[in-house]
């Protein structure tokens, strides 16, 4: 059992190592020109270069700040909106098609307006992150509330719960696991979108760094940017995954 667990924790590193070796071998063989296919060691050099000038840190902070702000806003507004819509049949039928409409739009379609309304920098990127994550958050919350098993509501009724208690002690804990899953999915989405947004509306950030590297034909920096983006995305998911281990929500993942 212990052996299995330790092999599990090492397995992803092993996969990464094999991938790295194949990449290095391919670069070393010279099948592709080095200008179009940077080797791992040049990428590492590029990464060190970016880190030593402090640009890597600035870009990471800029991107994380935009995702953090836009995503937090989307949660703060989207979850209550969704919970409210989930309990109000009429409001739901009036508003849900509109929410679905906006959710179907690629957030990148908003880029022209983002620039027009907010210019360049943090604000347009935050706006785009918000547009990406708000609507899925609302829809998940609506569905989660609608799917609360009626038996839990009956138990609340049996124990004389008022409306407030019903919401805080039954509905909220019942939907929490689904909200956490939605958080993981939309956080990933936000991270994908911030890179695309910064390519166009950014003056810094990891997306802008990639775009800048492409303009300067520095494929090594481009790949190092990609690696950082992928690593942060994976870390974010790991972090949010920890939420699912909270004893108050574990039941939903254990059945």
């Amino acid at each position, binding site marked *: 059992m212990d052996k299995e667990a330790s092999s599990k924790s090492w397995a992803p590193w092993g996969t990464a190592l094999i991938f790295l070796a194949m990449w290095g071998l391919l670069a070393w063989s010279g099948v592709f020109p080095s200008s179009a296919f940077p080797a791992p060691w040049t990428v590492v050099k590029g990464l060190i270069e970016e880190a030593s000038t402090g640009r890597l840190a600035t870009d990471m902070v800029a991107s994380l700040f935009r995702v953090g702000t836009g995503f937090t806003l989307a949660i703060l507004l989207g979850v209550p909106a969704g919970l409210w819509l989930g309990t109000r049949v009429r409001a739901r039928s009036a508003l849900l098609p509109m929410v679905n409409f906006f959710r179907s739009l690629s957030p990148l379609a908003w880029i022209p307006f983002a620039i027009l309304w907010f210019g360049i920098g943090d604000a347009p990127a935050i706006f785009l992150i918000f547009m990406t994550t708000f609507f899925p958050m609302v829809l998940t919350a609506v569905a989660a509330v609608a799917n609360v098993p009626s038996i839990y509501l009956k*138990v609340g009724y049996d124990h*004389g719960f008022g409306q407030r208690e019903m919401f805080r002690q039954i509905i909220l804990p019942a939907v*929490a696991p689904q909200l956490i899953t939605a958080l993981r999915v939309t956080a990933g989405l936000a991270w994908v979108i911030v890179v695309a947004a910064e390519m166009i509306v950014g003056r810094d950030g990891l997306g802008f760094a990639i775009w800048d590297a492409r303009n300067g034909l520095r494929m090594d920096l481009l790949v190092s940017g990609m690696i950082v983006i992928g690593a942060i995305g994976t870390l974010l998911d790991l972090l949010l995954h920890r939420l699912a281990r909270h004893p108050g929500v574990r*039941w939903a993942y254990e059945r």
Partner: protein
Amino acid sequence: MSAKTIDAHIESHVFGDIEVLRDIRFDVSHNEIVAVVGPSGCGKTTLLNLLSGALTPTRGHVAREGPTRTVYQQDGLLPWLTVADNINLGLRHISDSREKLAVLETALAMIGMETFRDHYPYQLSGGMRQRAELARSLVSPAPILLMDEPFSALDYMTRVRMRQELARLLHDMPRTVVLVTHDIEEAAQLADRIVLLSRRPTTVLDQFTVRVARPRHVTQPEVVATVARLLALLNLDSPSAPDAADGRRIPLTAS
């Protein structure tokens, strides 16, 4: 056995354009245990919901002396709460935390689950979950216990054990009980009175009193005789019984 704890006459209860219940007179005396037996889908759960007040009959009235607690077939425990917190739901009437703890501990001891107080329902077996739910209902001040096939999700041996335990608990802490079941042994072992329901529109086909002191054991000759009598009433006592599942064939013998 003078005043009725439950006094109901459901002239008619309709879902959409389907009449589920028709002309059901249902009286239960103080601390009487009434088992309701009938074919599946005959509206037994609807009857319980009407008795608890979760539903109001389309025509008729339900009067009950005090609130009810329902024990469900499964999933009646709130999955995000530990065993202790689930039982505490039934102790909401006690404001003194010391007293609350004392009652909780007695309840845990009564069901033999002292060591499982901090476990979540998903960490328990089906029998333990039902035991915890029973405890939650029995610690509450509600004088009426409604049980909706409480042991039908359990395997046979656990079910027999749980029936014995319930018989003991109800002997120590008498309640007015309406037990909906299609387990004939369960009805024969536990009930003071057995009510047989027909198919939809459901009505009372027959009822009789079991004049044997409680708590009883399932192997007691009187209990075995009651099982035989019930099987005969349900046309399940001979191998050639025509379409025994069809409640309409139940003969209307006087008790």
